[in-house]
């Protein structure tokens, strides 16, 4: 039996049990709250880590992650579920199912958007596109999620270009959220044949017009970046800690690549306030959570006046 058909069939039966999302906050424009839930570098870790893996032994697993996400969605209503890339490579599930299963499970869990990590190119562009197709073709109540990236030039890879957007806007009661993504340079990480037709561009320069567009044209209240650059490259390459200083106007960076276990977001000052930089290890061991409140009339210049998030 064709594996793709098999997964699609299972998804169809599962759809009936899908719970409707709850609407929460009252729709006052420019006033609302949103919770970002996020993962990074899940690396085909479908099952929890087995014993002998030190501090992360027994942690992770998509069945538990799915439950946690469902519970939080029911509690909170306005939730975005996001991923910072490197979904592929690391277990026999990837060797066998070539990433199709990983992306299909992300859709079943209700991911809203992801980005591309270097390992997502491990089998080349063709299999990456096939994995995305398998995810799109799944019959499931959840919509297919978007892949976001604004610093890869996909000109020579049209099948992938069709499936990766530079940014996306999500609307919630009283709140508009702009999402975008950036990826790491291919040199030393992805062999030439595996990123054929795709060129890396400087993430800082690529982001500036996108953030400006989201703020000024799309009039979003919050800008969230999915970054697969890495947390701290000590100035050797663009990274999440230095990005806010180079590109103002980003409220949250959901990071990946460096497998950094942060206990809380790092607050990085920038020209328009501050950026929260977060990353939650790897392998689906943790789910990150960031809560944002947007208050009507709060002004950027007065951004020191923080509103506590209602728990």
């Amino acid at each position: 039996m064709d594996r793709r058909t098999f997964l699609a069939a299972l998804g169809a039966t599962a759809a009936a049990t899908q719970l409707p999302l709850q609407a929460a906050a009252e729709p006052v424009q420019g006033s609302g709250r949103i919770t970002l839930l996020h993962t990074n570098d899940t690396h085909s870790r479908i099952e929890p880590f087995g014993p002998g893996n030190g501090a992360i032994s027994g942690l992770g697993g998509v069945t538990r992650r799915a439950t946690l996400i469902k519970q939080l969605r029911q509690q909170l209503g306005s939730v975005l579920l996001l991923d910072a890339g490197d979904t592929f490579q690391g277990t026999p599930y990837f060797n066998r199912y070539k990433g199709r299963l990983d992306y299909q499970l992300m859709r079943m869990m209700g991911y809203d958007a992801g980005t591309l990590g270097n390992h997502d190119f491990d089998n080349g562009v063709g299999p990456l596109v096939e994995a995305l197709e398998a995810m799109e073709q799944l019959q499931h109540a959840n919509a297919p999620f978007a892949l976001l990236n604004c610093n890869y030039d996909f000109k020579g890879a049209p099948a992938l270009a069709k499936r990766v957007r530079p940014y996306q806007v999500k609307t919630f009661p009283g709140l508009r959220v702009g999402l975008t993504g950036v990826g790491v340079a291919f040199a030393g990480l992805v062999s030439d044949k595996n990123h054929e037709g795709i060129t890396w561009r400087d993430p800082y320069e690529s982001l500036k017009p996108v953030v400006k567009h989201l703020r000024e044209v799309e009039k979003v209240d919050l800008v969230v970046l999915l970054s697969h650059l890495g947390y701290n490259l000590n100035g050797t390459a663009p990274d999440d800690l230095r990005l806010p200083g180079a590109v103002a106007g980003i409220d949250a960076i959901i990071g990946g690549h460096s497998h950094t276990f942060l206990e809380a977001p790092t607050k990085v000052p920038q020209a328009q306030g501050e950026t929260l930089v977060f990353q939650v290890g790897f392998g689906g061991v943790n789910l990150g959570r960031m809560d944002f409140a947007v208050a009507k009339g709060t002004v950027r210049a007065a951004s020191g006046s923080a509103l506590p998030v209602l728990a």
Partner: protein
Amino acid sequence: MNLKPFSLLLPALLGLSLAAQTPVPPAKGVVLPVNAAIPEDPEIQKVIAPLAAEIKATFDLPLVKAPQGLFRGRRGEENLLGYWVADAMRLAAQGAINAPVRFAITNAGGLRSNLRAGQLKVADIFELMPFENELVVVELTGAELIQVVSEGIARRGGEPCSGIIARVEGSPEKGILTVTWADGSLIDPKATVKVATSDYLYGGGDSIPTLKTGRKPFTTGITLRQLLLDQCGVLGKANQDLLPPAPGRYSIPVPIQEAIRDKKFKF
């Protein structure tokens, strides 16, 4: 605490435009551990269960015959299993970067079991290599390569390697190391050499400090386990046996071996 009234007043006081809407920084961002206290989602569980069973079934698939087995070697013996792993790493690295890779080194501590004589199954390779360590290619000078070999000898009597021959002479107090290419030719200390290793060793594991200074790291995305499975698969399909490589890559006199074990050896 509620700062809303203040926030509403402030723009008027400062004469700022009300149009600009700014997200207010969150009070908190937290890490939620995904642990056993969280129940499994039945929908996802139903999808995964048959696939997990399929993966498990592949563990019993026959890979290749190893009539002599491959062993890490007892005290004083060479680690022929490690040599095979290093050879496979060097071969896979050449395929990944499409250029010659003259040296490979891995850590004996990462090989978790021997390969017993007979028919090998997929599960045997998982037992040998349970970790998700990845093949990395870096650049070293010839001099640094020799230093890497010497650090491996000083620490563990020589980590499994491919592409070179190392001979230690002299005394435990003052060892003399000679390293040549496998064909006996001299290593140019100034030459740039592509070296295959694991992300674990390159990242500083098992302390071969000079390896960490490797330049232009290329992370292949291939796990060591996968390249060993691939190597076995190629032999199996061609109906060839998996045989241990010949010994002779490290020759170290017994008194020096003992001094290394007792941590009393110096070059």
